[in-house]
């Protein structure tokens, strides 16, 4: 009897490759979501008009809010999906442990968040190009990746961490649901009831204030939140039994 001895790192590497391949279909959903985001951004600008006898000014503000919102929703869904019984069972015919599988999920979610962040950022540029192509429009704020690379990178990093945070929350809630639907209900109920207490509102506002302080504080908040969700979810996954 000659037994195989595989290291954690080499098995995890294969597993990440496997999962990336398995979740490739999610990219198609992301593209669809971001196309919808582009269309919605173009359709609904907030604006103001000023008319005098000589000049007619119509200012419209296009923001990537819808794009980010939809990308976050997608990330939340992917995080949630990964915790489902059938999704977790897909890796079971292969070499794995529950904790390794969960770490693999986290790596894949990070990779997908990076991809989603980049495409969301680029979709934002698609919105700008379409606006420019419309007649009689002039771009007032036209920082781009060449004229202001630091703004571009800052926005890109913020997009990625924001999307990752939603994926992490989805993964965390999904894992809680797999463990116990009652606990999930209690967590969601406690979270929303906290929002109606002064203590809960203070915490929320404090967190938002810290996040608004600058890129690094925003990143810090997102990293702490995402890491906490991933660590708790991985711990829970370690004890979950798999059907099939």
């Amino acid at each position, binding site marked *: *009897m000659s037994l195989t001895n595989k290291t954690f790192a080499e*098995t995890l590497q*294969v597993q990440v490759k496997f999962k990336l391949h398995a979740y490739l279909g999610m990219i198609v959903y992301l593209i669809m979501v971001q196309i919808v985001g582009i269309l919605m951004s173009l359709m609904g600008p907030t604006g103001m008009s000023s008319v005098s006898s000589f000049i007619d000014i119509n200012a419209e503000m296009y923001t990537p809010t819808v794009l980010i919102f939809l990308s976050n929703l997608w990330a939340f869904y992917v995080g949630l999906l990964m915790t489902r019984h059938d999704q977790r069972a897909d890796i079971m015919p292969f070499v794995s*442990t529950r904790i390794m599988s969960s770490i693999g999920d986290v790596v894949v979610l990070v990779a997908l968040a990076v991809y989603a962040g980049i495409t969301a950022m680029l979709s934002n540029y698609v919105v700008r190009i379409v606006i420019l192509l419309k007649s009689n429009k002039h771009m007032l704020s036209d920082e781009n990746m060449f004229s202001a690379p630091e703004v571009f990178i800052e926005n890109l990093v913020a997009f990625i961490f924001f999307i990752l945070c939603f994926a992490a929350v989805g993964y965390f809630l999904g894992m809680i649901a797999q463990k116990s639907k009652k606990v999930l209900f209690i967590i969601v109920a406690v979270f929303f009831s906290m929002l109606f207490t002064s203590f809960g509102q203070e915490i929320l506002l404090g967190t938002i204030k810290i996040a608004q302080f600058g890129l690094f504080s925003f990143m810090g908040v997102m990293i702490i939140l995402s890491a906490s969700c991933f660590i708790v979810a991985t711990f829970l996954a370690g004890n979950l*039994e798999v059907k099939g």
Partner: protein
Amino acid sequence: MSVIQCENIEKKFRKKKALQNITFQIEDEKITGLVGRNGTGKTTLLRILAGFTKQTSGTVTVFDKTPFNNLFVSANSILINDQMQFPGSFNLQDILNYATEFYGKWDAELAARLLQYFRLNPQSYHSDLSKGMKNTFNFIFGLATRCDVTLFDEPINGMDEAVRKDVYRALLKDYLAYPRTIIISSHFLDEMEHLLEDILLLDEGKVALHKSLDELREYAVGLLGPTEAIKRWTAGLEVLHEKQVVSNQMYTVLKAQDCTFNEQQLLQEGIAFMPVSANDLCLYLTNSRTGDIDDVFNE
């Protein structure tokens, strides 16, 4: 050398005990048949051995390690069943390609040849296959991993007779070339008796019997003859099974160790000794019902 050791395993699902006081050892390089009626805990036991689920109490070791959440056990064991799932976006070839990367002893050539023999298109998707074809692919997957502990849970469900015969043959040939520890749970004991060395019989979540097939064949004896004579000879003995064959003829199964009769005397009274097949014996040992299905229809 024992590869699998279980001591006093108990598994509860809510309040129901699926397994209780399960203690046995399985030696290296043996094919063991795991048999028992529906709902006796065969699948639960295999899932515990594969590390898919945790026992409620007791100790389980595979290669001297606890299988649950253990990478070493996972790398050297596999559980094949009809609930196996693969990502929906993978075709069969993708699955086999990844298996090469995951399993150190994966035999890609064997997998490809078996796939071709069983006419499974490598470009087709696992979820699109019929039940029998799905199980054929799962079997190929399990065989080609060459894992030192290979667990098959009802591997032949849905396969037609010709495929089943080929599967048994393939399993035997590969086992002879690469001996390893194999456990097969199946309801088709008659068909696969020639493969097995040991039988582990479960009944109501407990080990009813764990013996070599040779020992099992000698475990019981059937007596066929006049009812009155059989009743007289078997009085006070533990009867494993009895059935009225025709109005005055009876068939009775007894433990062989209890049959210390004079064979000549029995023959003179018209009683014949009959061998009891392993499959029948397993049925008799696990039958808690009184009477048989005919009695349901006879008022």
